[in-house]
């Protein structure tokens, strides 16, 4: 059934043979799985970072350092998973055979190195007494052993990718190349966009479990979940849905998609502020756990970021769509 979806006209996969479709499917699924893993490890990373920043802000840099040393495997796990996501994304975009090999190899090697560092670090720190046991606990019952196992799995996957790149050939769907103009600025904003997407996804996922639909907080709870979901969808729609179309189709749908995206972003932002007006203590009482950046409990920064980013992305897409329309 999934393969049939690939046959639809206007999709970059529509004229591929069975093997190519299978490869495209594996690449797409890998991107999705690694995005989800990245989102969870990103939340762990944000939690570690928020606590350390809190200690520094409160003039306890020694506590921040102690905590950071203990949580190095958690922090590195995020970057290792991100390297995995980059590998999968390189296959997914498949701009050209040469770019694919160079970039995928680079990211796979980065992932393997980070994984090796995690394993070595845990072993050294166990002997040094920083970890009282390999099953010391916190943030999970198996920590830091679970970080070692996770790293070992990524090392194995990284080695498999390197072997595949040496022997196999990938011929999955080609997608538009990432424009090179203003490379630094573009890379910076793409990274920020990705982080917000990860944050939005994880925020939405966790909110299902941790948002407390207590008396009086229902509108704010729903609005909180909505803005998180929209932040994630901004990434998912443009990266997975939009890029799945052929170049011509993309040109045609840029403007309508941007208008829909902007309408949804504006609508969700409006609903959020409306709900906030009704629950001015909402951010501190509902789903506060998904706002680790707002550590100090005194800044609405995280929510504003999640609300603002989809708006910015939609406006940029709208401008792009209008320019394309004029050029046409």
């Amino acid at each position: 059934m999934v393969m049939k979806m690939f046959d639809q006209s206007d999709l970059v996969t529509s004229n591929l043979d069975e093997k190519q479709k299978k490869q495209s499917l594996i690449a797409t699924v890998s991107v999705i799985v690694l995005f989800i893993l990245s989102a969870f490890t990103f939340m762990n990373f944000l939690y570690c970072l928020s606590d350390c920043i809190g200690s520094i802000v409160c003039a306890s840099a020694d506590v921040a350092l102690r905590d950071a040393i203990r949580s190095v495997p958690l922090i590195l796990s995020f970057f290792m998973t991100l390297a995995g996501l980059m590998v999968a994304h390189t296959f997914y975009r498949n701009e050209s055979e040469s770019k694919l090999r160079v970039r995928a190899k680079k990211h796979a090697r980065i992932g393997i190195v980070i994984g090796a560092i995690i394993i070595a670090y845990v072993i050294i720190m166990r002997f040094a007494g920083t970890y009282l046991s390999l099953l010391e606990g916190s943030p999970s019952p198996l920590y830091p052993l679970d970080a070692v196992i996770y790293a070992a799995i990524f090392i194995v996957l990284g080695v498999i990718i390197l072997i595949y790149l040496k022997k196999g050939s990938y011929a999955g769907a080609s997608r538009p190349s990432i424009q090179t103009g203003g490379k630094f600025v573009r890379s910076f904003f793409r990274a920020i966009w990705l982080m917000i997407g990860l944050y939005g996804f994880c925020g939405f996922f966790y909110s299902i479990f941790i948002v407390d639909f207590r008396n009086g907080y229902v509108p704010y709870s729903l609005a909180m979940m909505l803005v998180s979901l929209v932040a994630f969808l901004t990434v998912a729609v443009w990266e997975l849905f939009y890029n799945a179309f052929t170049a011509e189709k993309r040109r045609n749908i840029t403007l309508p998609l941007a208008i829909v995206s902007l309408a949804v972003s504006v609508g969700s932002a409006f609903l959020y502020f409306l709900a906030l007006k009704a629950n001015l203590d909402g951010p501190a009482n509902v789903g506060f756990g998904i706002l680790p950046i707002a550590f100090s409990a005194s800044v609405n920064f995280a929510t504003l970021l999640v609300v603002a980013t989809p708006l910015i992305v939609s406006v940029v897409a709208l401008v792009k769509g209008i320019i394309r329309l004029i050029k046409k």
Partner: protein
Amino acid sequence: MKKNLFCIVLAAVMLLSCAGCAGGQSSAEHLEDYVFTVQYHDNFNILQLTDIHWNVNTSTKASMNYLDKLLKEVDGHIKKTQGEGAKIDLVELTGDMFMLANSYHLSTFIDYFETKAEEYGFLYAPVWGNHDRHSLYNPNELANRFKKAAHCVYYEPTDDLYGRSNYIINLTEDGTKNTSVAWMIAHLDSGASFSETELSVFRDYDYIRPEQTDWFIAEHALAGENVPAIAYYHIPQDENEKAWVAVTEQNADMKNKFFKLEGFADNGNEKYASDFIDRAKDHNLKAAFMGHAHNVDWTVEYEGVVIGLGVKTGTELYYAHINVNSDDKAMQDGLRSVGITENFDLIGASLVTLTGKDGSFDLEHLYYNERENGDFSAWVKW
């Protein structure tokens, strides 16, 4: 199909709307429901642990090792000063037990306190801090675990009171509601923070709301107008700052002691000042203890009420290093008040001993530091 989908969405919206409309019980009509009773005896010991702050970076094993030693020290001190039969009767956990934590921390924490409660024979009573809502667990999960824990005293109905942990422990002659109340121990949720408007970039720290004060006064009337009361909550209210200003800027003659090395981290906004102490003091409130600002354990007798922050427990997030050679005036003032002549960290616990039904009590601060060459321990009387 579309019709079915519409019905499902409509039903979901109605269900959620109903959840939002459920007002819960009226606190004024259910005053008895908020009250637990525990048997009173002279020298009733209340240990305050505050701002333990278990988080994603915490080594819970190391933290539990510290708490093991701390509890042993307190138990030993009580037995030494009050006799072998004396013990910790009640542990007050005054908020920020967690921050950036998850269900694992929550389970481990409650399991730990259950084990220790069994070992030392105490009950423990938690109040919420601002960061206890700042974790990857559902706050209801924490509330339900507290409710179910065998040695935990906790009540949280769906009601018209602001916050979660608003409840009373009455110390009575025989531990039941049938005999007179000797002391009333009130627990209030001082909230977390709030935005002044929906477009505010910053949030203010929360405060004890007027309806909570009304509830306290009603509960006190139920216990008996002459019953002495103590309140435990997390965020300092405006009286702490008022007392500090009176002592430091107006040279007011108020008994005060211990350290104040940072602000009280209250909202500092007159518009949102709490009326709690101001009104509760006319209802036999003898003392109010809180946490929140880790570098402060400053205590003052203000308009007849002893108001003080507990000593921060453990080394999570931040704490002050007390240096006897420091040029900092606040640190030197604190050192002079406690009479300690060596460097130490401002972590430990606070002990209140109810010495009589007349409202008399003793207060001691314990500074307890783990050290490789033998732990540091200093008890300082109020």
